């Protein structure tokens, strides 16, 4: 079997397992308990924790089923020489948060330094920032469940088939659709237009997936991606809220606004995509030499 055929076979098996092992319990829990009861309330934390490990389980099972072995499992920390990428993983979501905060202020409010310093005294800002940076990376083991599957396996199998740009787009969409049983019930984007919510989730996953893919490729490890994902899930972007000023309290955002507010992340994602493509071109040139 050619390498591409083998990759395709493994990818299909992985996706079936990843979706099956997650969607079946998620849909069942949605029916049995109701989405907000099992997912949002925190009453069934163990179910939320375990069900998020579907993609990681799929990675393990696919490797076993196809006798692939554990070469390039991306489970090494690879700290040596890669600390800068770990640092990027830590701060990138906060940088996106700062850009989002400025975007909200300049679109819906007005720059008022007096209000900013009144709403966000230095101690409060420091407490939030330090607290988030100290605690969020520790929860990277939760996001490992996703990253070990998507970045640690899917991207590797997809890139030879679809190329880097294709992997970023199709991989991001698959990752976004994987969230659908939750998104359709109101996760992140409310219940008004659930299918638009799924599309927004796909866009969100494409843009953040690019940065996560860049981190994984640069370090050869899934752990920086786990840290960045954890920073995203556990308040890494909240630092930007301190820069919001002059926004009326009655302001209600529509899904179109949500799309517009995704702009900083999309821009940052595009920058990393360009970086990734440049590095790939450079590698090709060096290989030819």
């Amino acid at each position: 079997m050619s390498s591409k055929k083998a990759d395709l076979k493994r990818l299909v098996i992985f996706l079936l397992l990843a979706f099956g092992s997650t969607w079946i319990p998620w849909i069942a829990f949605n029916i049995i308990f109701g989405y907000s009861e099992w997912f949002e309330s925190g009453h069934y934390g163990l179910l939320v924790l375990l069900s998020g490990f579907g993609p990681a389980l799929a990675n393990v099972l696919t490797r076993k089923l196809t006798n692939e072995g554990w070469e390039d499992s991306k489970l090494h920390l690879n700290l040596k020489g890669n600390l800068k990428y770990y640092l990027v993983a830590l701060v990138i979501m906060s940088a996106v948060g700062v850009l989002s905060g400025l975007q909200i202020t300049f679109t819906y409010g007005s720059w008022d330094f007096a209000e900013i310093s009144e709403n966000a005294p230095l101690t409060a800002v420091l407490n939030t920032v330090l607290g988030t940076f100290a605690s969020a990376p520790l929860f990277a083991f939760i996001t490992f469940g996703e990253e070990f599957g998507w970045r640690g396996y899917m991207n590797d199998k997809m890139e030879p088939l679809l190329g880097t740009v294709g992997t970023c787009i199709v991989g991001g969409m698959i990752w976004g659709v994987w969230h659908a049983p939750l998104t359709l019930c109101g996760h992140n984007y409310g219940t008004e237009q659930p299918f638009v919510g799924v599309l927004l989730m796909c866009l969100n996953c494409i843009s953040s997936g690019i940065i996560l893919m860049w981190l994984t490729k640069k370090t050869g490890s899934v752990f920086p991606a786990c840290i960045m994902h954890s920073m995203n899930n556990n308040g890494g972007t909240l630092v930007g809220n301190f820069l919001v000023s002059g926004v009326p309290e009655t302001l209600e955002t529509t899904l179109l606004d949500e799309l517009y507010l995704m702009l900083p992340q999309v821009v940052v994602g595009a920058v990393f995509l360009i970086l990734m493509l440049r590095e790939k071109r450079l590698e090709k040139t060096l290989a030819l030499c």
Partner: protein
Amino acid sequence: MKGLLYKECKQNRLYLLLTAAAAVAAIFLPVALCFADEVEPMESYRLLLSEGETLRLIFLLLGFVAVGMMQGLTMMGDDTKKWALFTASNPKGVSGFVYTKYLLVFAMSGIMLIGCYSAEQAFTTLGYCVAKLDAMPIMSFAILLFYAQLLLRAVELPFLIRFGVKTGSMIKVIMLVAAVILFILLTLFGLMNGFFLVLNELISGQMNDALSLAISAMPFVAVGAYCLSYRISCKLYLKGAEYYVK
């Protein structure tokens, strides 16, 4: 490096397993205590879920203390002259060996934290399924303990490496006893009132800005101290080897 890591994992597999067990025990022992109550076990369990955070915090603290003791024991067996000379002759040398020791100790704290989180999720889910009650989350305290443990190991490990486990542990005990005596003396002379005020603020959750900032900064101090401790241990290792008993 892989070989050294494999050796550490193989040699300390019992401690790694016990760390995971300590995490589960720290969360679930209070539940076991409730069901040891022969008169009204369910009522005790309800009480634990609704108002038992102090008891749960004590067990969590005990769990971290137990893991801390095991972390010190991971140095046992490697404090011999022969091993030190063999290590120095390795391609990765002293720094590689000390690095794996520090990584192992960090991993043990990590396993404890992950174990506590997972066990706490199980505890919360069980509590809601059985008694329809929400338990107070204690993970923020576990995170603080994780960093405090890192800070303590940052101080302890260079002593264990410089003087060996036996002498190093004795030095640790002497330092602890001295600290306790000093603390008692200062308390008797009324010089620790400020400390008790701070402690009171910490427990009641009504912290002033300076205290909350100090607590937020503590993790970064701990991580910095741990990295610095590794550098110091690398420098001390061969000097210490001269004093190892065997």
